């Protein structure tokens, strides 16, 4: 078997393991799916009635917040899936992988692909629920949304992997990542549009990689370009460039880190 084929076999096996482990922990499935549905419902129906949020478009706030809920599923699932790196290290599984001839790049790729698949499938399940809740999405829109979700998940799981590789404990990782994830989600256009935000917030939103994913998700879910521009969202081209650059940088950082630091 060539080195390349062996690397793909190893990465595929690691990715598959991530999915199998996930499916054998029902708590994780429920948590990952119920949290965003709950957030979306509470935020959407609560905020939408109490405040008149400007720039949310014709569909009303519930529809606006749907893209935000999808972004949340991807954010939480992709990042927390990489927590398995810490568990693997603690349980001793990782040392067996690192003592094997599987290239480090395969180990990292396996983790990232596994986390990405889990994140996209779960966000996809929420997407299927969309019509039930009154959000109409075309077939093209679904394909578009899945592409955006995949790009976002790739970058976010890379970010999670880098953090997990350094983290000493699951608790520490949770604390740090919550500190990163909540502002990242709140300041991405998921909850309120940039058009209504203050100057410094808009600056933070502009450098937040999640902002670009959320904008493209809203576009996939049927928001018109005019409505997006009016809400202060970035354009399609810059969104894709930013998502791909973010993913590439994070995955490369993961590869570098795993190659240098033994991590077991």
């Amino acid at each position, binding site marked *: 078997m060539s080195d390349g084929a062996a690397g793909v076999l190893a990465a595929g*096996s690691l990715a598959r393991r991530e999915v199998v482990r996930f499916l054998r*922990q029902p708590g994780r499935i429920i948590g990952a799916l119920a949290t965003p549905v709950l957030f979306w419902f509470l935020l959407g129906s609560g905020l939408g009635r109490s405040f008149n949020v400007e720039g949310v478009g014709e569909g009303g706030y519930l529809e606006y917040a749907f893209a935000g809920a999808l972004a949340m599923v991807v954010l939480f699932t992709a990042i927390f899936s990489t927590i398995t790196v810490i568990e693997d290290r603690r349980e001793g*599984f990782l040392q*067996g*992988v690192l*003592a094997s001839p599987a290239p480090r790049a395969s180990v990292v790729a396996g983790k990232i692909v596994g986390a990405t698949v889990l994140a996209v499938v779960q966000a996809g399940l929420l997407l299927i629920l969309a019509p039930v809740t009154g959000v109409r999405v075309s077939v093209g829109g679904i394909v578009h949304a899945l592409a955006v979700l995949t790009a976002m998940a790739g970058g976010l799981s890379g970010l999670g992997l880098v953090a997990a590789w350094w983290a000493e404990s699951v608790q520490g990782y949770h604390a740090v990542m919550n500190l990163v994830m909540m502002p990242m989600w709140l300041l991405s256009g998921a909850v309120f549009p940039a058009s209504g935000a203050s100057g410094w917030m808009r600056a933070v939103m502009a450098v937040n990689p999640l902002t670009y994913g959320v904008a493209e998700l809203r576009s996939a879910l049927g928001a018109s370009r005019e409505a997006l521009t009016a809400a202060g969202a970035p354009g399609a081209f810059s969104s894709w460039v930013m998502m791909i650059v973010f993913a590439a940088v994070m995955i490369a950082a993961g590869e570098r880190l795993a190659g240098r630091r*033994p991590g*077991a």
Partner: protein
Amino acid sequence: MRPTPAVSVQGIGHEYGSRMALTDLTFDVAPGEFVALLGPNGCGKTTLFRILATLMRPTRGRASVLGADVGADPGAVRRRIGVTFQSPSLDGRLSVRENLMHHGHLYGLRGRELSARIDAGLEGVQLHDRSGDRVDQLSGGMRRRVEIAKSLLHEPDVLLMDEPSTGLDPAARRSLADLLAGLRRERGLTCLMTTHLMDEAEVCDRVAILDRGRLAALDAPSALKACVGGEVVTVQAEDAGGVAARIREEFGLAPQETDRGLCIADPRGHALAARLAERFGDQIRSITVSRPSLEDVFLRLTGRRFEGSGDMGG
């Protein structure tokens, strides 16, 4: 020309911060040889194990496996070694078979060949009827046997084992010894194992005794025992300290206090035992004369008793 050693350690030194774990360690293991690294907890054997398994770089020195340097060419080393970790490197949420499948994939094995190897491997550790069980539902001893099957699945030339018999009952220990002996006969397997169990070390070709990061001795068990010489008298007494002091005073000997009792190596142990029994009679619970064990060797070489009863490696 001598054949390439299976494992070669040249001047390895390692420190954690300012704590020295290994000091200038040098030895070779010949192909097909079984060598035990014997030492108490914290003697540096697990550090050496991790260096040879390519999981850690030594601060100083070089190590190689079948000619491949562990630092410069870890990939080549990893292809040739099998590693049995002290805490099993298994995924508890996967079944026994799934764990082995995954391990095979990491080594480029798949399909029917992998499946056949898994069947044979599980047969070898008497777990063929448990292949569908989830690993976290197995007992500690069974997990260890899965770990052993896993480390042999890709048919390594050199097997590194860290405390392989932790958690194994005597029957499982014997069958592990048989399994390894068979692999050595069939395809010249080399094995380097860390252990704190004297009887496990005793069946190896050579024993390396590690004491506080240094190599105290490396020789065949029989040669090591011969260097203690003669016989060992072991005295058990209620007041071990008091009896030891009197033996020192009255007999001019230096008894060493161990878990087993007071040990005195003497060329004519049985005669000494008779004299001691006569002198201390009622203060002594028992007195035995035996051929020296590796424990006595350790005591002689390091001047310290061997405290290897715990299960943690050092």
